[in-house]
């Protein structure tokens, strides 16, 4: 009697088991697919993007000054060597300023980086 009942249960349970099994297999397949897609660590790229925005800001803050300093330094040296003060300083300050502006535009992404020239050629 009891055996009969269990047999019946088994027979009735069989389709349920199969459904559960296939559902579990499906779920496993989905999870494996996501695991294989190798998440590019969305979180860390976002922080990196934020930080690089700051980096850009800080970069711009000194680019102009640096250009001017280089120009001034070169002009001063040339003045000293050639004894044409203050003309070297004046001219090179202008160049330095131009270079500084170029630096800033480059840092802001308005002008292409120098390295792009190697790439495109």
């Amino acid at each position, binding site marked *: 009697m009891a055996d009969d009942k269990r047999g019946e249960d088994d027979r009735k349970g069989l389709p349920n088991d199969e459904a559960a099994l296939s559902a579990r297999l499906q779920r496993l397949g989905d999870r494996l697919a996501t695991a294989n897609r190798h998440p590019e*660590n969305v979180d*860390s*790229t976002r922080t*990196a993007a934020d*930080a*690089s925005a*700051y*980096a850009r800001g*800080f*970069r711009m*803050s*000194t*680019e102009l*000054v*640096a*250009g001017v*300093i*280089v*120009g001034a330094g*070169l002009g001063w040296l040339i003045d000293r060597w050639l004894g044409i003060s203050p003309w070297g300083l004046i001219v090179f300050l202008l*160049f*330095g300023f*131009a*270079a*500084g502006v*170029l*630096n800033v535009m*480059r840092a802001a992404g308005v002008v292409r*980086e*120098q*390295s792009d*020239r*190697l*790439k*495109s*050629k």
Partner: protein
Amino acid sequence: MAADPIHQFRIVELFPVAHVGNAEIAFTNSALFMFAAVIIITAFLVLGTAKRSLVPSRLQSAAEISYEFVAATVRSTAGHEGMRFFPFVFTLFMFILTVNFIGLVPFTFTVTSHIIVTAALAITVFLTVLLYGLFRHGFHFFNLFVPKGVPIAILPLIVFIEVLSFVSRPISHSVRLFANMLAGHITLQVFAGFIILMGSAMGAIGWVGGILPFGMIVILMALETLVAFLQAYVFAILTCIYLNDAIHPGH
């Protein structure tokens, strides 16, 4: 003395080591903190990961994060080939970061508040870029300075400005770090000086009034912590950008 905002940047010679020509080489507080940084970084990375556990402890996970952070920065900025400079960039980043953070601790010395240190680091980067670029591309590397589609008449002028722009890199690179650290520490010191000043000048009322600058110091401290990290990061990422010029995939 405490009110003098410059005092904290003074180099203190702990003991002299050698004389080279006119110059005197001495072991200074600056050198002491450099080595402190070296020891801290090495201990952090090596001891933190000594167990090599698959599921990391807090310290190990911090070490791994620093590794992966720099690795991601290098890879995204300088590409796959840039990874050969990963140890270099990592060393730069960790050194500057640690030295900056040590400098935030009261009564310590900030190595990066000296222009000679930041300039030396920036020039190292500059020379690395220049030499590796020449080694990898030969004279083709100088195409860096030659924009396309510019009339031949003004080309020399443009090239000259481009060269200036290239040469100004180590300057901006070093001045940025130096100036930020210097200005931050001077500001902190000035506000701290206010507290002392008010306390000694106005007695009890002054001490109460000192709460305001103290609050400012707390805020500034948070800001400086951010700046300390960001400056190290900016230095690292600009190094990567410059390196990218040198290693750029040829064809």
